[in-house]
């Protein structure tokens, strides 16, 4: 009980309490922002499932269909197939971005080969559909506000205090 009468100690305790509560509040705010950003990536701005992840899944699905079609015409699909498999196992957002890019290159090459092959009318139509969906998904990814939200988070955590808070908060990464 004598400690309670020690003024210096009490001031120190107060300072520690104020600093820790400010830290806690700041980290909580950043965590909420980070959660929203993750939600944006996974379920979309309006939480309706229309998100970058949804578009990436669409692209993987289309890529699989195009690979199957290419196999049917005896076109070499090992690289495209590997790109699909690596993409499916990609975990971080940056990895997904890289995998998406390489998948785009591989599928573009396959599509060119398929267009040179003499496809049946049904297959040609099917290829066209798959390419439309595949490319459109890339368009919507390019317009998604995800990276803008990450930029806002980065802006929030710039500066000395922000950098300190960032150490304790959840991490977010650009889709690039």
């Amino acid at each position, binding site marked *: 009980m004598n400690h309670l009468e020690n003024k210096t100690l009490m001031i120190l305790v107060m300072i520690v309490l104020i600093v820790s509560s400010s830290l806690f509040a700041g980290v909580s705010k950043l965590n909420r922002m980070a959660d929203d950003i993750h939600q944006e990536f996974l379920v979309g701005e309006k939480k309706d499932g229309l998100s970058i992840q949804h578009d990436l899944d669409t692209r993987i699905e289309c890529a699989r269909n195009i690979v199957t079609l290419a196999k049917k015409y005896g076109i070499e699909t090992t690289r495209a197939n590997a790109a699909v498999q690596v993409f499916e196992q990609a975990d971080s957002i940056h990895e997904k971005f890289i995998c998406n890019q390489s998948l785009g290159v591989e599928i573009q090459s396959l599509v060119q080969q398929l267009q040179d092959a003499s496809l049946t009318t049904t297959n040609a139509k099917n290829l066209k*559909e*798959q390419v*439309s*969906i595949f490319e*459109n998904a890339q*368009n*919507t990814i*390019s*317009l998604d506000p995800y990276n803008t939200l990450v930029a806002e988070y980065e802006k929030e955590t710039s500066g000395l205090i922000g950098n300190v808070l960032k150490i304790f908060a959840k991490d977010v990464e650009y889709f690039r």
Partner: protein
Amino acid sequence: MRKFIVTFSAILALLVAMVLPIYAIDVPESVDTYYYDPANVLSEDVEYDISEKNYEMDRHSGAYIEVVAVDYIHGDILNYAYTMFNEWGIGSSEKNNGILLLAVIQEEKYYVMVGRGLESYISAARIDEILETYFEPYFDNEQFETAIVNTFDVLYEELVDIYGVPNVQSNTTDTGVDFAMILFFIVLILIVVILISIMLSKPRYPQTRRTHRYRMPTYRTRPYYAPRPTYRPTTSYRPSVSSRPSRSTFTPSRSSSISRSTISSRSRGGSSRGFGGGRR
């Protein structure tokens, strides 16, 4: 010092270049009609037909097709369409079910963008198919109006497939509001009548007066009753017939252009993720 300035300027220029593509897209102010035609490719009759069909579909489902024909956009049509769609808030804000049909006449570009609420109904492949069949051949042949009308009609049919045929009878919103208002006033009048009858049937202070110690010697006091309320339910409390929305109010006339703001009961602000197709 000079080296620092050069480096700083280079970094600044790079940053500006990175930011510019995002913010440099300048779209016109939102219009209050279902078409925007500064390129002047649509005739009055076509403008009327577009407005009439959109008007009914908008009332019915909140969905409509905004037709835009401009001469130049000076940039990427995908970004332009995306910015225009979201700044104009095409479609209902709840359903996000608008469609933008954008034709850039002098640059020979076009794009159809759909709201996020329609993504599960109209695939990108279907949009490409529609454009290739109904838009591109006419557009390339400089039959701009035909291209727009044909594509509009097919897109409209897509909306009909999704939401059904719009007609005055099937609209529930306006009549729903009307019934709700009438019901509200009936209940209000009933409550008022009940309250008045309760107040009139029970004197407020009879007990108190009876037990009062002092009595006026010259006259007998009458028990105190609450003053009769001055309010009486009259017909003025019911919504007047003229204030109620009638079907005839919503019937578009050829003389007046149909604007989106006429349908005040619905909220605007539909959004799109850039889903669609076209020539870039």
